[in-house]
Structures are given as structure tokens and as C-alpha cells.
């Protein structure tokens, strides 16, 4: 990840660390996370609750609590439409506000909390347009109608006048996407956008996001805990555990032949859409995700890992190793594990 990469990447995050101040001292939620996203690319950030995946995205958006309560280290280089490169962690708040909702947009899991319940959706979208573009209300509303139609809401003209509570969960998420698209963002950060939705609606939203990406060439950072969704939508995937990247690479290799025992366990724990004769116990990962205030020494996954070697894994924090084909893994024994996994 050197300087040349920013020439193509929209976002280049380097050594990002996030720590929160608490009563008992600082708690590190994200450690030394680096990744890039190119235009037209979808990067999936996968992890369980407490893995730091949401905090990573909020830190990039500078939506974490302000300075004394949160400590941000590292860089998040963002390339604007005009080609200038800025460090999102260093720009003044005013410049950040100009970027948010404009060149960088974000959508969330629960659209109801992100939409203003007492304002018509048309006005909310128009507002988003007018904040960043020198257009009048008339023009902004036309743009809102166009956006609603674009995200697949039928009868868009009439829907402009609807309040959020008139709409179903899927519709509200479409409205959120329309708002996010209002200013043609170069980067869309989607934090669990389909988690609260039914599978049929989730499929619609995923398809919509893919269509929009093809059309606009925006980069998407897609945060999810659902590996099925990752396989559907991502080009590359980054798995996080206890605040660190533990594996990243192209979605095909990572999901077909994961190198990190955690990724392997996660993939096996997902039940597949099949039927078996009688109940076959699901493969689970024993134990629980460690609390960020009490991380085990060495590899954070060591207490739950079937391949952990006492004296090694509980003593040394593994670096993020380059394996093959750009696949990176944080495991001291990944080649040994790969050999063991290859055996039937």
C-alpha cells in the first residue's frame, strides 16, 4: 500500500487506530487497520459485534465522538472528484461536513432513525441536494423525484409527499439510498443496510446497489456480518476480529479457501440452504468474542482457535502476512493450517 495506489483508489486508509476514553482508561476499538477501495469496487467489511467494523467506518466518516473522547491515529486518504487527495482524519470539521453526504455518503441499518419522522421524504432528499449544490427548491425536488424513481420507487411524484412512517422498511431503505445518491458520491459506506430487512427485500436492495454502482462507478464499503451477502455483492473482503484485520483478499479465494482459522470457523458456522437426514450439529466456534477491555495476549483469536499452539499463539501478536494472490492473513501458523485444511 504505497503512494502509487492512491492514484487509483478512492479511499486509502493507512494504519487507522481508534481508541475511546472510558472511566477506566482508553479502550482500543480498532488497531492499525489499512485498506483501499477503488472506483467501482465493493469492499466488504465482515465481522461480529465488537469486531470494530462499524467503528472503522464511522472513524473514516469522522462520526466518532470528538477529540478528547476518541483518539484517531493514522490516515484516511480520500480522492475527490477533482483529483485532490485529502486526509479525512486531518481536514477541518467544516471541510468534512462539505464532503459528507456529498462525495462520501453513508447508509445505515435502520433507516427510520436516520430519516426525520416529521418531514416529507421529498423535502428530505431535496434538502440533501440543496446542501451541496447551488440549486433552487424546484430543481432539487425534480432531482428528488428522479432519484426516487431511480431507486425503484414507483409513482415517485406522489411518494415525494409521503412521511417516513407511511413507508415500509424496504421503501425507507430505498429513500435512504436515494438521499445518499443525491450528490453522486464517489464513495458509499453502507453499514449493515439490509440486516433489518426480509430476505426478499434484501435481495432487491442488493441488486439495486449493484445496478447503481455499475451506472455511477462509485466505490462501496459494505459492512455486514452476513457472509451470504458478502458472497453476493463484494469484490474484495476484509474480515475483522477484535479490532484487527485478520484476513483480506479477493472474495473468491477468501471465501473458498480461507487461511485464517477464524474465517474458516465463521464460514462453517453459516448453515447452508440444504436438507440433511436428521439434525447434524452445526459447526460452531467455541467461546465468545473477547471484550476490547480484556484482549487475550498474543493472537486475540487464540482462546477459540482449534489450531492454536501453546507457547506461540498466546505469546506473539501475529502480523498481517502476505499469503498468495494478494490475500493477507493474520495468523502465525497459516501455512501449517492451510496444509492441515487441505487434507480431507
Amino acid at each position: 500500500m504505497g503512494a502509487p495506489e492512491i492514484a487509483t483508489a478512492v479511499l486509502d486508509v493507512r494504519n487507522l487506530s481508534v481508541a475511546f476514553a472510558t472511566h477506566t482508561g482508553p479502550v482500543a476499538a480498532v488497531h492499525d487497520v489499512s485498506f483501499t477501495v477503488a472506483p467501482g469496487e465493493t469492499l466488504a467489511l465482515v465481522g461480529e459485534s465488537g469486531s470494530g467494523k462499524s467503528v472503522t467506518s464511522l472513524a473514516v466518516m469522522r462520526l466518532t465522538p470528538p477529540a478528547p473522547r476518541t483518539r484517531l491515529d493514522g490516515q484516511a486518504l480520500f480522492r475527490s472528484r477533482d483529483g485532490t487527495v485529502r486526509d479525512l482524519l486531518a481536514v477541518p470539521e467544516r471541510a468534512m461536513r462539505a464532503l459528507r453526504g456529498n462525495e462520501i455518503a453513508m447508509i445505515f441499518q435502520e433507516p427510520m432513525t436516520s430519516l426525520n419522522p416529521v418531514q416529507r421524504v421529498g423535502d428530505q432528499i431535496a434538502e440533501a441536494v440543496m446542501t451541496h449544490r447551488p440549486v433552487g427548491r424546484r430543481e432539487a425536488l425534480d432531482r428528488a423525484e428522479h432519484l426516487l424513481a431511480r431507486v425503484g420507487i414507483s409513482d415517485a411524484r406522489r411518494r415525494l409527499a409521503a412521511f417516513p412512517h407511511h413507508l415500509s422498511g424496504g421503501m425507507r431503505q430505498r429513500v435512504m439510498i436515494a438521499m445518499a445518491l443525491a450528490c453522486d458520491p464517489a464513495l458509499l459506506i453502507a453499514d449493515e443496510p439490509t440486516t433489518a430487512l426480509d430476505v426478499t427485500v434484501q435481495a432487491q436492495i442488493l441488486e439495486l446497489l449493484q445496478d447503481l454502482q455499475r451506472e455511477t462507478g462509485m466505490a462501496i464499503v459494505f459492512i455486514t456480518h452476513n457472509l451470504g451477502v458478502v458472497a453476493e455483492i463484494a469484490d474484495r473482503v476484509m474480515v475483522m476480529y477484535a479490532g484487527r484485520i485478520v484476513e483480506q483478499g479477493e472474495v473468491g479465494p477468501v471465501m473458498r479457501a480461507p487461511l485464517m482459522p477464524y474465517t474458516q470457523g465463521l464460514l462453517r458456522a453459516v448453515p447452508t440452504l440444504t436438507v440433511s437426514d436428521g439434525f447434524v450439529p452445526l459447526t460452531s466456534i467455541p467461546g465468545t468474542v473477547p471484550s476490547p477491555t480484556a484482549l487475550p495476549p498474543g493472537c486475540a483469536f487464540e482462546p477459540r482457535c482449534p489450531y492454536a499452539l501453546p507457547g506461540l499463539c498466546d505469546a506473539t501478536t501475529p502480523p498481517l502476512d502476505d499469503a498468495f494472490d494478494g490475500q493477507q492473513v493474520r495468523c502465525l501458523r497459516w501455512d501449517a493450517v492451510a496444509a492441515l485444511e487441505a487434507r480431507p
Partner: protein
Amino acid sequence: MSIMALTPPPIPRDGPLLRVDRLRQWFSSGGFMSPRLTVRAVEDVTFEIGRGEILGLVGESGSGKSTLGRAVLRVTDLTDGRVVFDGQDVSTLSKRQLRPLRARMQMIFQDPFASLNPRMTVGQIVGAPLRIQNPGISRSEVEARVGDALRTVGLADSHAERYPHEFSGGQRQRIGIARAFVLAPDFLVADEPVSALDVSIQAQVVNLLMEIKRKLDLTILFISHDLAVVGHVCDRVAVMYLGRIVEIADTRTLFRNPRHPYTEALFSAVPVADPSRRRQRILLKGDLPSPLAPPSGCAFRTRCRYAIPACAEAVPPLAHIGGGHQKACIRDDLALQPAC
């Protein structure tokens, strides 16, 4: 207790444990000052669950699956229809009459945060069923049985002293399971028991549930929107759409040979964790229609790609098509995609 003595259950031990007959559960709102609105949350539902069987109940949110789960446990007063539990008609029993039966039917909730009283210790929560059902029970017996229950679900005796907020989501769900099992019930309604949990924890909790099921020879109504989990856990599956069961069959038949277009669409929408299997999905148009104003005829026709004009005419009955497979669709000429 006196009720049980007056009407001893006629014990047809070979019959189904639960029989639901033309069940209706409507909810009304408004009335006095505002226009009366009636939501037909569950409409004309009939099914049985055999002893020791796990019946899956799947559908989108708003399909009425949770309402149905609560109705069979008589949490609500039924609008119409019958629920027969172990040969005894419980449809019209009062709260008091139901109390002795409560020891035999229990529930696990989706949200492990909302389902445990934050002001009670784990010991009080898990012990509550024992105290409520046997008011004379001794303190030491409660403690002993709570300890057993906690160990069974993979927690320690010492956890009884703690409060729910000190536990993770997965551990809280284990506490909820311990509460449901401490009375050794026969029948369990599990309402989305794992959908609020992390993937690696989901598998643990499903396995635990199945282990206890085997131990107690439980009968379970397993409500879930996760078809993959349902496929692994359930013997039979019922698919609900807008308050009605549209298809019901044993799991293998349903997955291999779905006969209702909605079942096909549900399967098709499930994302598969294998990037080489990105498929052409059958995308349903739009959302679930409002249950306040369901479409005429087949409620699914507005989103169904196989709909024909005749679909709007009458509600299709849930018809037997052999081998215990039932479906509510007038089209018999469809070749639908299987789940796997």
C-alpha cells in the same frame, strides 16, 4: 389444580401434541373516536405438530408467524378457531385455567435483551417458573434446579447471582433457554431464537437447543426467517404469507420440490456464502401488501410472476397434493426452482 382434577385430559398419546384448527387472530384498533381498523394477522390457519416433531414456520415480517406462535400458546384471546393441546381444547380456557398447562408449554424469545427482567438476578429469572408453578417450593430446591438448568445451558452455578446486563447476547439467550426448560415442558415455541445473535454464537445456541430437545423429547414450533437454519433444524416447514399458510410439507420435500411460487421466491432470495454460486434471482416486486387491505383472491398475486387473472377471484384453499404436502396455489402447471 382443581381444574385439572375436574377435567382430566383424555390422553390420546398417539395423536398430535398440538392441533390448530381454522385459527383466526384479528386485532382491532381505534373504535370510539377513530375509524375501526381490523388487522387479520392470522387467518384460517390449520395444522398439526406431532409429538417430538419440530415444525418450522417461515415467512417475512408481517406474515403473522409470531402472532400465530403466541396464539397457539394462548397469550392472546383467539378470534376464532380451535387450539387443541395434547387432546385438550385450550381455545377458550381462562388465564387461571391455563396456569397448570403453562408448565408444559414454554417460549423462547428473539431479543435476549428485552426478554430478561433487568432488575432480577439470573437466579431469580430462571427460578421464577418454579416459584410461580409451585408456590410452596423450598428455597434450596429452587437453587438446586436453577443450578442444574444453568449448567445444562453451559453456564455456571455462580452466574445465578449476576444480573442480565453482565452477559453477552449469546449468554443471555442461554439464560432464556434455561428459563424455558427449568420446568421440563413438552412443547416449546421458539420465536426467532437465534436471529439476534452473531453467526459464531448462532451455531452454539442451535446445537444447545437441539441437544435439550433430544433430552426432553420436546415438540417445537420453530419460528424463523432464516431458511437455512430451518432446513437444518426442522422436520416439517410451513410457509406463511399475509396471515395464511401457503405451503406446508416435510423439509426435504419443501426444499427439493417447492410448489408455491412464494416458497420458490423465498429460497431464491437467500444469499449463499459461495461467490461461485451467484445466481439469477427471482426478485419479488415490491413489499408485503398491507394486512389492513389484503389483495382479493390470492394475497401473493400482486408480487407473483406466475399470476393469472383467475388468481384474483378466490382465496386458494390449502389443498393436499400427496405425501402430506399441502399448497395454496391454483396453478398446478409450474416447474419451480428447488432450494438445493
